[in-house]
């Protein structure tokens, strides 16, 4: 059956209004699914969950990376910000493995910078405990003989009864060379 072009167009115009509600609803449902399966942050992914939970990626979620050298010195790593951030947004196994692979396949070197290791006191002040070398993937300095790599992903929670902020470790990756 041939439909005249004008009728066809008016039919399309009548139904085209459904496109955005369908797409937006699918994205919303996908966000809810990934939130429950991969712990996707409520703040991201089109689920309209801003100001709905404490799991703000850069605020309450953390990824700590450590490299241990042949002298058994455990050095915190600050690199690969984008991959780290993706874990903070969605700490899926895939994202953790991706970061671990990147860390394993990187040639780590000692840099001229040193990282202060601090201890937090009860009053909020800090005590300097030590300094460790800062590993870097850049430059021509001495290569680090890496013994192991650790990734710790966690989230900060607040207990309303005791008024205590707690950093809970949720997922870990450990790699021995």
């Amino acid at each position, binding site marked *: 059956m041939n439909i005249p072009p004008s009728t066809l167009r008016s039919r399309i115009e009548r139904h085209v209004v459904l496109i955005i509600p369908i797409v937006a609803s699918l994205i919303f449902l996908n966000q809810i699914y990934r939130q429950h399966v991969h712990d996707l942050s409520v703040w991201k992914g089109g689920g309209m969950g801003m100001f709905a939970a*404490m799991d703000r990626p850069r605020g309450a979620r953390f990824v*700590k990376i450590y490299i241990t050298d042949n002298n058994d010195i455990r050095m915190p790593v600050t690199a690969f910000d984008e991959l780290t951030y*993706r874990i903070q947004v969605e700490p899926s196994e895939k994202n953790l493995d991706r970061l671990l692979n990147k860390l394993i396949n990187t040639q780590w070197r000692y840099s001229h910078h040193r990282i202060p290791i601090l201890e*937090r006191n009860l009053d909020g002040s800090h005590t300097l405990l030590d300094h460790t070398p800062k590993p870097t993937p850049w430059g021509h300095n001495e290569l680090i003989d890496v013994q192991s790599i650790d990734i710790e992903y966690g989230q900060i*929670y*607040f207990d309303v009864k005791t008024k205590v*902020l*707690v950093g809970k470790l949720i997922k870990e990756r450990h790699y021995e060379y």
Partner: protein
Amino acid sequence: MNTKNNFIDNIMSKLDPAFNTIEEHLSKWTHLELVSMLTLILLIFHGFITDNFNYPVQLVFLVAVFYRPALSSSLAWAVIALAASYEVMNFWHHTANHKFLTAYWLWALCISHWCEDEMSKERNLMINARFLILLTMAGACIQKLMSSSYMDGSFFEISLLTIPSFNFLLQLIGVDMSLPSFTHTAMADLRSASTVVAQNAISIPIDATFSIVAMAVTVWNLLIQFVLEILCLCRGDRFQLMFHWLFLFFIQTTYIAAPFVGFGFLICILCYTISAKRFPRISYLYLASLLMMVIYQSPWRQVLF
């Protein structure tokens, strides 16, 4: 109830000359043209930050200033909507929820301009604007109801202390102003790989009054969004009027406290879209709200507090 209605009527009648002036100026624009121009202004002030997006937006805006029919080009809106969709899909980890909403709205405008039939243009615009408001409110309510950190009040207890925009509120309720920075460094220390925190736990010296205020904000925020959702779903004139007055109240009370105006701008445009034909005078208040948001962004808090 009658006293309240008389009060509102009195205010509205005093605003008559202003409304008439606005009406006269706006009558030079079609509804779709005006909504399109407002959206372009939103994109210039609070769009995506990449050049890929900004070039087409700036080009369309400048052409539209001198040649208004450019606002009605579905091709121009398709280019802008494509650029927005690219940004959302490619950088979704970084994209805030209201940017998703912006992208949906750009496609809604593109489709409206593409329609030839005037009825279809209007219908498409109205349905999508209402749907996006409903999605925003329903999404916010569902996510909050599912979130344990929202429902137990912990979200606002910490957010009020760590989001600098709320500092003036803390001063109003007499919170010790060293507490926000104490909480801020506590969060940073718990996140840090180079700071040792005993038992990974830090006690925050919050008093009972502050907890009550945080819980009141928590309940208020959820409740008002829930009521707005219900009112938006109701069809009658009376419910729609209640919806618009409550929404205007929500916008003013929310964005004066938390000036995250990109989202507020878009919400005002959506509400203007659905109210312009049915309640023209109320729709002008949404336009006024756009101006108010610019004022809310100014550093008035630092001057007063």
